[in-house]
């Protein structure tokens, strides 16, 4: 599809909330989800009886919070639209955008909640309060053949293949990690706030699956986030400067189940980026801020290549963009990446951190790390065959 999504520019993000962002929040996952949702509604300046749509992420790799829990927990009485979403996390936002744009509801609450369950964290295995409930369904029907696990390992295999095919090195992936850490030093809620990292420290960190080290993986945490969506017209009456949805897309790529097709997420990311540029008429140089999914550093490499250059050109682009003094990336000499630290350094919000940061920057409210005159943000999200992308504009 080449035309702009019909109603995209009529939709705005008007509220954001976050809760937890800690290794051990001392709260349940449900408590975090409710807290983030309530904060987002208050941030928008809305009353709870105005919320008439809800959609959340609960079909990803681990158990999360269903919309019914949130509706019950917040006492929302007027829900006339609900969506359900799997990965990528941003899909729930897109459900909300579509619901608002098509008029199925007036104010949509979308949320994502992630917990440091026993299945994601060695340290949580013996904690009786962190035992994960059973999955609703097994999202990976390929798992019968996983005699040798796991997803993480397959990303490491794609990283090794990238290094072989395109001459990238661990230093290049390290630039992505160090950039996140450098930016996290200006984000007090980041899990790695106060803990900068050098390329040498990255190279010396222990391998989890060589060539993949500990810092190539995001940090499991307890966190929930929420975003309120309404029409651009209604948004003008609310508290914050609205952030306009320029366009968005969410895709599923063939021939990429990662485990048995371990070439990373580039083909899907490429398709998403081509679609976004085509629909919006924008190009990489129009972007002031890149919030690129970085659940694993090789996935961020795939997004950098898809969004700003081409397959195999990421290493060269990063060399030009990396400031060895500050540890920061400025793509094309100008565009910062993951100014909040990303999943790798702020914490494992599974891409929703990228959304919250883009909104905060476009509002002009990123205290201590505000990009001057930030008007256009690229936000991407993916962890496997599923990929999504969105361009947001300030108003």
């Amino acid at each position, binding site marked *: 599809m080449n035309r702009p999504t019909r109603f995209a520019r009529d939709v705005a993000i008007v509220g954001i909330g976050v809760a937890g962002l800690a290794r051990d929040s001392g709260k349940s996952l449900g408590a975090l989800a409710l807290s983030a949702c309530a904060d987002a509604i208050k941030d928008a300046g809305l009353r709870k009886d105005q919320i008439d749509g809800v959609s959340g992420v609960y079909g990803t790799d681990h158990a999360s919070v269903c919309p019914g829990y949130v509706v019950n927990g917040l006492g929302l009485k007027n829900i006339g639209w609900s969506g359900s979403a799997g990965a990528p996390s941003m899909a729930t936002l897109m459900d909300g955008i579509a619901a608002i744009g098509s008029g199925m509801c007036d104010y949509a609450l979308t949320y994502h909640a992630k917990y440091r369950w026993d299945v994601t964290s060695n340290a949580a295995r013996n904690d009786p309060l962190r035992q994960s409930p059973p999955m609703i369904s097994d999202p990976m029907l390929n798992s*019968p053949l996983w*005699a*040798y696990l796991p997803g993480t390992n397959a990303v490491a*295999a794609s990283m*090794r293949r990238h290094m*072989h095919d395109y001459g990238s090195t661990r230093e290049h992936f390290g630039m992505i990690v160090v950039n996140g850490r450098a930016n996290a030093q200006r984000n007090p809620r980041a899990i790695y706030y106060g803990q900068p990292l050098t390329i040498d420290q990255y190279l010396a960190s222990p391998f*989890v*699956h060589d060539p993949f080290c500990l810092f190539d993986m995001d940090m499991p945490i307890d966190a929930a986030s929420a975003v309120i969506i309404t029409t651009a017209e209604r948004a003008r009456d609310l508290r914050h400067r609205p952030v306009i949805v320029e366009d968005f897309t969410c895709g599923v790529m063939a021939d990429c189940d990662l485990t*048995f097709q*371990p070439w990373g997420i580039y083909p899907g990311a490429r398709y998403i980026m081509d679609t976004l540029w085509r629909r919006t008429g924008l190009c990489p140089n129009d972007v002031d801020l890149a919030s690129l999914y970085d659940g694993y550093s090789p996935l961020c490499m795939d997004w950098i290549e898809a969004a700003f250059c081409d397959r195999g050109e990421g290493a060269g682009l990063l060399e030009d963009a990396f400031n060895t003094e500050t540890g920061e990336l400025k793509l094309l000499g100008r565009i910062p990446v993951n100014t909040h630290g990303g999943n790798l350094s702020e914490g494992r919000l599974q891409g929703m951190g990228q959304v919250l940061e883009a909104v905060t920057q476009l509002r002009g409210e990123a205290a201590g790390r505000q990009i001057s005159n930030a008007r256009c943000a690229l936000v991407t999200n993916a962890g496997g065959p599923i990929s999504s992308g969105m361009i947001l504009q300030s108003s």
Partner: protein
Amino acid sequence: MRVDYDTQAYWKGCDERKLIIARCGHCARWIHPPKAICPVCWSAVINYEEVSGEARVYSFTETPQKNGQPAVTIWAQFEGRENVIILGALEPVLGTIAINDPLTLDWAPLEDTWVPVFRKRVRS
């Protein structure tokens, strides 16, 4: 591990130390992991064929172990069937391994069946 209607031929092959790969009965496309319909032509006629163990390293990872010897996981690409990639451990782990190294298939016991492992093949 879990067996279902699509994967039972694969696992039955493992029981007998044979690598059984699904193949479209109409357009001859190899399909792995096995599925009930060909992704290319949508034929529902799926055959299961034993394939030889001649493969190459598509990629690999080395996972540190407590004994100091890393566990090497191989993604093996089968010659003439490039869209078929099988995961297996490298045995023995001693020595070096590189992308495109030739491999032969072998089997190792796991629970009550056998699973693929790979050995480096001497270049001929």
